[in-house]
């Protein structure tokens, strides 16, 4: 593809990095809003990621709300059947893992699952279609798969992270939360000469447990990001091949359908598992 048009990026490297560039907007030092000169600016916004993720989120919300509004017992429509299958699937996953009662976790799981699935699904649209269209509309960069943007996956996993902390404190109290961070895995001695060693053990526990706690959102987001980014990259690499890309693209797309679904499921499942661990009382 890269070699076909005269108007596109010149080399394969340019083509790839062009595809991996987000459409960004930020406030420059001069005080003006500028497009695409935001490298390293922490206040930049990836407009394409936000646009597509919000659009897909809206599709999810409106579609499901539309079904939820007119659920019928006697004559369930096709959409209702689909929605009920998904909801029941999420509900049973939650019930298998999460023993407590929570009004939040199941809807959270549903939202995460469908939303991430839809965002991942954008990967199956041939890599050049939307960027080419947006180029015609005068938009230079367009990355259509929000989950290949590390900001998006981190944005979600950090929300989950705060929910983990919130649920831990809610169910075990602030002392329980601190205790969980400091009294595991080695219980500090409480009497005798061992008291001298206790602060070190607590510090050791704290470091260990903090890493374990922080690893949850990091692994959650990087897993999704890594899978989707790698998949996207391979689609881009296949797209460079010219005519040979067709069978390869098809093969990879078929395989990717699996990854798309699996990653959405894993993200949902881990969210539920983390939150159920947080709510578990010993």
């Amino acid at each position, binding site marked *: 593809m890269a070699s076909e048009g005269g108007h596109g990026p010149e080399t394969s490297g340019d083509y790839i990095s062009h595809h991996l560039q987000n459409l960004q907007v930020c406030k420059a030092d001069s005080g003006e809003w500028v497009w695409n000169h935001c490298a390293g600016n922490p206040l930049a*916004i990836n407009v394409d990621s*936000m646009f597509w993720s919000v659009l897909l989120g809206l599709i*999810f*919300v409106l579609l499901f709300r539309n079904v939820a509004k007119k659920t019928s017992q006697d004559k369930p429509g096709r959409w209702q059947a689909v929605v009920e299958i998904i909801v029941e699937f999420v509900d049973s996953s939650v019930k298998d893992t999460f023993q407590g009662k929570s009004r939040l976790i199941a809807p959270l799981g549903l939202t995460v699952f469908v939303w991430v699935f839809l965002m991942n699904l954008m990967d199956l649209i041939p890599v050049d279609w939307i960027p080419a269209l947006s180029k015609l509309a005068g938009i230079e960069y367009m990355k259509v798969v929000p989950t290949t943007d590390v900001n998006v996956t981190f944005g979600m996993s950090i929300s989950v992270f705060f929910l983990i902390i919130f649920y831990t404190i809610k169910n075990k109290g602030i002392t329980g939360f601190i205790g969980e961070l400091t009294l595991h895995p080695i219980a500090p001695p409480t009497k005798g000469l061992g008291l001298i060693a206790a602060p070190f053990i607590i510090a050791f526990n704290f470091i260990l447990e903090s890493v374990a706690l922080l690893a949850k959102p990091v692994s959650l987001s990087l897993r999704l990001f890594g899978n989707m980014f790698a998949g996207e990259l391979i689609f881009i690499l296949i797209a460079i091949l010219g005519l040979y890309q067709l069978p390869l693209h098809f093969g990879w797309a078929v395989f990717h359908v699996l990854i798309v679904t699996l990653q959405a499921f894993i993200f949902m499942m881990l969210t539920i598992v983390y939150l159920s661990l947080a709510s578990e009382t010993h």
Partner: protein
Amino acid sequence: MDINLTLIGQSIAMIVFVWFCMKYIWPPVLEAIETRQKQIEDGLAAADRGQERLVQARAEADEVVDEARRQATTILDQANARAIEIVADGKADGSKERERQLTAATAEIEQEANRAREELRGQVSAIAIAGAEKILNREIDATQHEDILGKLAKEL
């Protein structure tokens, strides 16, 4: 690939979507599912109950038929016994009637015979008187009287 404000934006978007889902999507859909599950459960239970009731009804029907059959047999037996009894009664009545009629006929015959005898006696007396008159009229010898008397005696 650097971290920037998108992260916050995405978090906010997620919170909004999750809130919306929790508020407006999850409850009605789950309620619909649970209502349907309840309906299916109830339907199956009703079907089970129906099945049970059917079996019960069949047993009851069998019982009723058996009872009817038993009753019919009893009735039949009774009827047979009654018929035999009636026939026996009839026979007894018949023989009694015959006896009665026979007795009546015998009595009548006897009566008739008596009457005939009486009549005959009357006639014999008349004949004797007539013979006596004839004897008196002729007034002939005793041998002849004897003769006539002998004849009369024979006639008696």
